[in-house]
């Protein structure tokens, strides 16, 4: 992939084996090893139905991971993705159930609202010069509080909009290719990932996101409107959180206003395992999706083996540290 950087930093492209390629390869190898390990040691793991389980369990975290990847590449961070997901789910509920509008309004409304709130985070960072960690920490709380306020601290159900359920839980693919049951939520995740990869690698926005992350000052001096592109970047993150909100609430057939805290850490972990550098300027969407798959294979496999939740958390932590270690080693070699 051509990861164009405006910054005068040393070009990372050295033929086929760029750091990013290597790291994606490492993450992919880890994924294959995990699949192999669980196939051998977890009875009933290696079945198609379970692969569908894993894909479906990856959908929400994968989408949130993509959202946070944009921001991290721009050398920022977004801690609000989990509760923003919940807030947008509540917005979809208000539009569809409380206001009784047709499905497209709910879908578009939730995403636009997420984008709007994300842009506010971006504006706080770009204009008010609040560090991204603090600005999005604040937004995390604002989104969590608003989700409770807007919903009256009650779940909002989508029983009046039966088609809502099919956003994540039906299968369009089964209709086209009978027998291949891939839930729609998984297609949505891959759709978001492809769109995100195109934006990141083929658009001006993508080029500026890398520029911001590699050397913000250089970007500013070359005449890039740094503030505006930051706002757009966080807005895009919020918009994608809106997709996450639609996926989770469709699957639970309800917007659960109390859920969402902690999901941001899983999303950041997926990005980091997939090789996105927390210092900015480096990362890929494919890597994040592989990272999200590594996490859900691990979770699913350990559960199928009957390993306790407590140990599952410990092992996930070890994998994150190992991934960042590999990242550091590869970067030194580059």
């Amino acid at each position: 992939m051509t990861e164009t950087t405006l910054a005068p930093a040393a070009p990372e492209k050295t033929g086929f084996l760029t750091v990013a390629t290597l790291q994606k390869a490492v993450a992919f190898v880890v994924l294959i090893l995990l699949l192999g390990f669980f196939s051998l040691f977890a009875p009933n793991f290696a079945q198609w139905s379970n692969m569908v389980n894993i894909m479906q369990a990856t959908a929400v975290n994968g989408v949130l991971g993509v959202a946070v990847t944009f921001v991290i590449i721009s050398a920022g961070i977004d801690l609000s993705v989990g509760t923003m997901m919940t807030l947008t789910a509540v917005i979809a509920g208000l539009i569809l159930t409380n206001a009784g509008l047709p499905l497209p309004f709910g879908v578009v409304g939730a995403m636009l609202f997420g984008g709007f709130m994300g842009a506010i985070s971006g504006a706080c960072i770009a204009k008010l010069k609040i560090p991204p960690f603090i600005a999005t920490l604040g937004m995390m709380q604002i989104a969590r509080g608003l989700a409770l306020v807007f919903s009256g601290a009650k779940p909002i159900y989508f029983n009046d909009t039966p088609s809502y359920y099919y956003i994540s839980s039906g299968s369009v693919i089964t209709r086209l290719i009978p027998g291949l049951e891939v839930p729609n939520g998984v297609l949505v995740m891959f759709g978001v990932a492809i769109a995100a990869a195109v934006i990141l690698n083929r658009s001006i926005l993508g080029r500026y996101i890398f520029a911001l992350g590699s050397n913000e000052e250089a970007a500013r001096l070359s005449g890039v409107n740094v503030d505006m592109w930051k706002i757009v970047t966080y807005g895009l993150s919020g918009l994608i959180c809106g997709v996450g909100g639609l996926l989770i609430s469709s699957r639970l057939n309800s917007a659960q206003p109390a859920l969402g805290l902690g999901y941001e850490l899983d999303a950041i972990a997926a990005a980091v395992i997939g090789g996105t550098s927390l210092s900015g300027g480096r990362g890929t969407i494919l890597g994040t999706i592989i990272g999200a798959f590594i996490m859900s294979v691990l979770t699913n496999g350990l559960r199928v083996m009957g390993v306790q939740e407590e140990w599952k958390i410990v092992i996930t932590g070890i994998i994150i540290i190992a991934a960042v270690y590999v990242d550091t080693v590869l970067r030194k070699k580059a």
Partner: protein
Amino acid sequence: MKKTLIASVVALASTTMLCAPAMAQETYFPIIAKGFSHQFWQAVKLGAESAAERNGVSITFEGPNTEAEIDKQTDILNAAIAKKPQGLGFAALDSQAQVPALQKAADAGIPIVAFDSGVESDLPLTTCTTDNMAAAAAGADGLAKAIGEEGEVAAVIHDQTSATGIGRRDGFLNRLAEAYPNITVVDVQYANDALKATETIKAILQAHPNLKGIFASNEGAAIGLAVALKETGSGIVGVGFDSGKTQKDAVRAGELLGSITQNPVGIGECVVDSLAKALAGETLPTTIDTGFYWYDATNMDSPEIAAVLYD
């Protein structure tokens, strides 16, 4: 409309909270719950408010954002004690950690009534609670009968540290061990939200193809159970706990066999009534069992059950 109404009730409640110190001469009980976002707590609040009106006292109803924030709840407790109320209702997130804070209230001569989860101390005059062990045992009975008293079952519990999580898990497991020798429990897992419960249950179903039934120990776990059974098309027997619209719909449609409901409105009433009685000098029993009911598609619309179910 309904949502607006609830929003204004919440707003009103917070206003009352702010004004509370100003009207200290009137009898005032702060009621501190474990949270407020589960519908269960909203129902407790409803019961407490109606009892407050009946007894002519004023109350506030507060709780931390999530049921893991023990420290936040302790802060709320300390703030409530500082207002020098005439009594205090408290649902401890941790049965031991908050005893020192409660001691302060006791030293100040404030009568304490515990509710939902007990406190491992004799400071509370009484505890208004569901007998979680007995309630989960009733769930075990329902599940066992439905699978012909033999085969493999599993349980998904909402957390491994609170008194309700431990009580329901042990009540379920002990009852199976005592009364149903031909039932094997193949897995007990923990999941604290509806999505995590869904994935957990799907993994359990994957690991144990011969599984005949699953018990889910609270509203979130039961939503996960209903979603997982629907997504996998599995016909195994599911038994839940508490209510909420998703769970009620699943029971009514036969996707879940049944569930155990506590009596949250009764718990709320019991707290305020007990505090009023304590002020009047009555002695109280150490625990007041507010009761539980098994419900399924056949009895959930009966007036007795419908009154304690909530959306």
